């Protein structure tokens, strides 16, 4: 998809909205898988956002100043015996973009997943 300079594609808007939702829920920072899961829950999709799609979008949002990131303290993953997380945080600019996206597209309805009706 070709984009205008400075404009956001739907996935980037969705990431900003999901990050704003997480922030309202008390989570200031989130990692890649967490946002993929939040996006999947929001769209009721069974398949999570692909690795390349998700991390390229996160990188673009960081480059545009809508997100900032840091690697967590290496003692924490060592203690929990897991790989280190890159933690993202929504900036004020990202929050504004999320608000604008929410106002601009109020009519977008969450499409329910098609399920087979019981016989």
């Amino acid at each position: 998809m070709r984009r205008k300079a400075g404009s956001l594609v739907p996935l980037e808007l969705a990431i900003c909205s999901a990050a704003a939702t997480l922030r309202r829920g008390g989570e200031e920072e989130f990692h890649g898988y967490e946002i993929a899961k939040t996006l999947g829950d929001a769209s009721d999709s069974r398949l999570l956002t692909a690795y390349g799609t998700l991390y390229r979008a996160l990188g673009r949002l960081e480059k545009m100043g809508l997100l900032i990131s840091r690697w967590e303290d290496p003692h924490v993953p060592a203690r929990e015996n897991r790989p280190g997380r890159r933690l993202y945080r929504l900036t004020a600019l990202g929050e504004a973009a999320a608000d604008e996206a929410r106002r601009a597209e109020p009519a977008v309805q969450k499409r329910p997943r098609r399920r087979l009706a019981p016989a």
Partner: protein
Amino acid sequence: MNPLLACAIALVRGWTRLYSSRMDPASRDSRRAEIESDLWEFHEDARRRGASPPGIAVHMIARLCFGIPHDLLWRFEYEKDGVTTYRRAAWLTAGAVGATVCIAALWAFFAVTSLVSLPPLPDSIHVERVYLQLRPPPPPPPPPPPRRYHSLFDRHVGPPPPPPPR
């Protein structure tokens, strides 16, 4: 570990290593670590929810395949930015070298002309003298042949005449 799940994890890791190879270490390691973290979080979350290992593997492979175009685009964007940075660095280096050469030329000019007194030359004259002493002296010129003048003022040309008889 289920062989299909191990294969899926190896595929994701291998692809990430492939498209992030020959990058600067910071970007490369950051992307690899991020994917590794995602793999672990996804696997743990799916295991907690009771998903079957083959199901997790299929999901991982699907996420990998759908993301391949974006992985490639991400790499191409990196290369494009890298070329721009390289050109900028080349121009900066050329400018720095040019400025250094100009400053060095100016310093050399002033040093040669007036600002710095040059040290005395080595005693090349002494060397020349020693060299000349070592050479054998030239042979003396041969004596000039006896000159015989025949003029009006010199009557004794040749052997003296015998005395007149009495």
